[in-house]
């Protein structure tokens, strides 16, 4: 009862602030109202997972290149120690989330829609929980003790943030292996670096969390609002953004209030400094997918991210609240990203909750701790019910991407009946937040007209699932689009490969042609040299003869010189003739040899075949 009153009041204040015209909100087309299913898991504080016996830590938990392993099997590693360095510009390091011995570096199944395996570092943990020494950039304030002097402490916080250089903060973020925790998994440092360069003026913090069941951001904001706000201030500092908007769905009044009270100190400090408010928390109407990056930007600013472009192209950078909290931990505690908050929910879980789980912990361990009815499991979904994917087993690790584990029992989620023909009712296009025409794209995907699909802007599809949800014929539309996107990407890759091969071939041909010409030129020069030399020799001989003769008759010398020149010309002509004759003989020989192998008897052919076979086998063994 008390709760509901409080909730009403909060919602009232939310409504008031909207009414007061503080925030002008825009809207996005389409979208759907979904049952929230959030109350199961968001009513208790964040629990923490027990250390697992074995941690399986994938080296690629981000967009970009996998981290390069720097540990070896048998190494003893401490909690927080680097297991793999970032490899390339878009990459992130991976750290040990517990102390122990590296027992394997091998391919293990990871949570991925394709069900693929990937290179993982396997650590058998010890009981000591030994930790590397963290080096924070700012010494942490004890936030809890500072009730009365909050304003002062907060402004102290701010001063210490401004004292840091952007490079310092960003390299700390890079070293901590922070990636976008909202689901994109893009290395945060790379994104911030680009944003800084591109003079991004608006920082949008995504706190919408629009998918049903997921509450990990909700509880993070409720129970650790200061961390979120300080993380946001750090990000804002690096980016150099003039304003910061936090977009939060209006179904999370508790989180809104928590953020608001955490922020009030800063706002106060700023009012005295007579600057515009740094951070605005803006409630947005709860309508799926309001938390989609593009939709949130549209709702908060009225701007649209250009097709195939980035928010930075319109001066906006978007980060998730969980990423902000991770930035806080990296800067204030020096702690790398070795754990994350995971929502564990669904009918097959006895105590739905949010748990701070070390990366690499087997999902089975996490579920067991939350109380799992294994026989009740119907589906295991990582992520939400709209955009998540079904896991084939629970014996795979939690990664930086694991925001929610939805363990459904029978009839909790739907297994749609077989698809019926499309009746063109346009419910899909009416619900599409991108204003696409799913019904047309479906027809073209079905008939594999890939060009047409691109004409209908297939690649603008954000795979939010609204169309599939709205379809009365139960057509798995998003599945068709995923398939078509893959198909087109594969085709493009193949074409690129073929282009490369063709270019290589052409280059080789050209090179060979050049080499041939150069060889011919060299041969010609050699021949000329040879001819000249011979001519010179002949001349010398003639001169010697002439010398001998000159003693007899000096007046004859000019005539003899003339005849010498003649002989030289004759000589070189002879040489060329000879060379041609030699070449002809050689050619004839080669031809006759070839004829030898061509007119083989069957026995001889068999023998040769056998020999060849043996040779190839040998080479295989080698």
């Amino acid at each position, binding site marked *: 009862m008390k709760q509901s009153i409080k909730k009403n009041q909060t919602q009232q204040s939310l409504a008031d602030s909207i009414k007061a015209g503080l925030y002008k909100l825009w809207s*996005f*087309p389409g979208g759907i109202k*979904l*049952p929230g299913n959030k109350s199961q898991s968001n009513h208790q504080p964040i629990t923490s997972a027990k250390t697992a016996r074995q941690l399986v830590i994938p080296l690629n938990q981000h967009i970009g290149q996998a981290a390069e392993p720097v540990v070896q099997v048998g190494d003893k590693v401490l909690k927080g120690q680097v297991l793999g360095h970032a490899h390339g510009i878009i990459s992130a390091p991976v750290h040990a989330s517990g102390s122990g011995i590296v027992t394997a570096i091998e391919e293990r199944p990871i949570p991925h829609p394709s069900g693929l395996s990937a290179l993982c570092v396997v650590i058998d943990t010890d009981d000591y929980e030994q930790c590397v020494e963290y080096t924070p950039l700012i010494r942490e304030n004890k936030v809890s003790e500072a009730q009365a002097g909050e304003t002062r402490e907060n402004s102290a916080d701010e001063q210490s943030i401004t004292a840091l250089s952007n490079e310092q903060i960003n390299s700390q973020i890079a070293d901590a292996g922070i990636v976008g925790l909202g689901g994109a998994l893009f290395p945060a440092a790379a994104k911030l670096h680009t944003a800084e360069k591109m003079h991004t003026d608006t920082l949008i913090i995504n706190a919408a969390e629009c998918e*049903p069941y997921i509450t990990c951001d909700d509880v993070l904001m409720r129970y650790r609002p200061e961390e979120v706000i300080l993380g946001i201030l750090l990000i804002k500092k690096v980016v150099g953004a003039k304003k910061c908007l936090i977009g939060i769905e209006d179904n999370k009044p508790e989180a809104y209030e928590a953020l608001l009270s955490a922020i009030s100190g800063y706002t106060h400090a700023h009012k005295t400094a007579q600057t515009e408010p740094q951070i605005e928390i803006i409630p947005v109407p709860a309508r799926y997918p309001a938390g989609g990056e*593009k939709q949130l930007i*549209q709702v908060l600013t009225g701007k649209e*991210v*250009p*097709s*195939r472009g980035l928010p930075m192209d319109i001066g906006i950078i978007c980060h998730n609240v969980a990423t902000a909290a991770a930035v806080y931990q990296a800067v204030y505690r020096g702690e790398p990203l070795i754990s994350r908050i995971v929502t564990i929910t669904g009918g097959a879980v006895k105590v739905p909750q949010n748990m701070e789980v070390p990366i690499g912990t087997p999902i089975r361990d996490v579920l067991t701790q939350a109380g799992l009815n294994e026989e009740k*499991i*119907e*589906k295991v*979904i990582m992520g939400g*019910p*709209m*955009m*998540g*994917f*079904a*896991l*084939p*087993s629970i014996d795979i690790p939690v990664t930086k991407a694991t925001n929610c584990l939805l363990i*459904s029992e029978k009839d909790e*989620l*739907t*297994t*749609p*009946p*077989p698809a*019926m*023909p*499309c*009746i*063109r*009712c*346009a419910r899909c*296009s*009416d619900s599409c*937040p*991108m*204003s696409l*025409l799913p*019904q*047309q794209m479906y027809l073209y995907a079905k008939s594999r007209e890939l060009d047409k699909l691109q*004409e*209908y*802007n297939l690649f*603008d599809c954000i795979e939010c*699932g609204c169309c*599939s*949800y709205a379809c*009365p*014929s*139960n057509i*798995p539309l*998003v*599945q068709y689009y*995923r398939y078509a996107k893959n198909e087109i990407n594969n085709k493009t890759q193949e074409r690129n490969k073929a282009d490369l091969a063709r270019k290589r071939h052409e280059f080789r041909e050209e090179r060979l042609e050049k080499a041939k010409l150069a060889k011919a030129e060299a041969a010609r020069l050699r021949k000329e040299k040879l001819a000249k030399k011979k001519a010179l020799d002949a001349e010398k001989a003639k001169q010697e003869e002439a010398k001998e003769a000159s003693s007899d008759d000096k007046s004859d010398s000019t005539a003899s010189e003339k005849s010498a020149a003649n002989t030289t010309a004759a000589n070189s002509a002879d040489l060329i003739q000879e060379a041609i004759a030699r070449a002809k003989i050689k050619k004839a020989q080669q031809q006759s040899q070839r004829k030898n192998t061509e007119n083989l008897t069957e026995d001889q052919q068999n023998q040769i075949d056998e020999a060849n076979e043996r040779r190839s086998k040998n080479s295989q063994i080698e």
Partner: protein
Amino acid sequence: MFLAQSSPYLKPDLNVSKMMRVVTLLMVPGILTATYVFGYGVLVNILLAIVFALSFEAIILYLRKRPVRVYINDNSALLTAVIIGVALPPLAPWWLTFVGVFFAIVVAKQLYGGIGYNTFNPAMVAYAILLVSFPAQMTTYWQTPVMLLSHVDGQTLSLLETVQFQLFSQLPANVTMDALTFASPLSIVRTSVLSGAATIGEIDAQGNAFGVFGGIGTEWVNLAFLAGGLFMLRKGLISWHIPISLLAMLGFLSLLFGSFELDSNPSPLFHLFSGATMLGAFFIATDPVTAATTPRGRIFYGAGIGALIYIIRTWGGYPDAIAFSVLLMNMCVPLLDYYTQPRVYGHKADNDDQEQP
């Protein structure tokens, strides 16, 4: 291994079968009103149409080697049958319904590939073919509206007599066709005005065409269908685009031309509440399979039907025009859908031109 399937994993309890069933149920107020006004023939028509439609559908599905039960259960044949039943003249002989349903289900729907693949609205194909092939039965077998019985000294039939007439063409001894049937308000206006026999005012004075606000008798039927239609809008079963643009265009044109020549043009209310206007706007033009799908396309589609209804009613050869208007606009759907694609998020408005070949 747990159950694997692609997201989304949430799905509302919605399917084609349910949609069609609800739409059919929302026609009930209109059907009951029509029965009150035009007699039991309406119910007999609907019943016959349903029996014929389901039989044809089952046979063709069987011949096409499709799962009969699955597709029969989608209720689309049911809806088509009910629309045909309501649209046909209440005293239509059974074979008229039979031929109509045959063309709707077998030719216009199943031969085009079944549900979702037909280009033309099956019920309207049926109506148009019947109107062209059997004009006498289609135009004169309308029973005298109950409101006019005393005014024109008309006669009416009991349920049993209606069945007898429709199945065996047997009339009770004392009943004549002339006394039993009466021209519809639309055709009275149509013939009188076209031949110059009477002005609107004179027709009004005769008192057998204009009711309280629309066509006599039909105004109440239209009102009942409007109620069902508004409920569909409220429930989100149909979008507003088609019915609203259709009615707006029809109203606008009748207002426009009516304000020039009051003598030969009935009021917008008469156009909106006579004939099959409301049935057409909410239950026929909104057939998803054959209508335009883009938001702007649907507006053009609805407005096009509205305009054609007015044109054919006023200057064409038929008193009502829902069937021809819908069929003509069905033909335009691919074009409309192609040229009215919405601007996709993140694309510039003028990008559309580049993308069109």
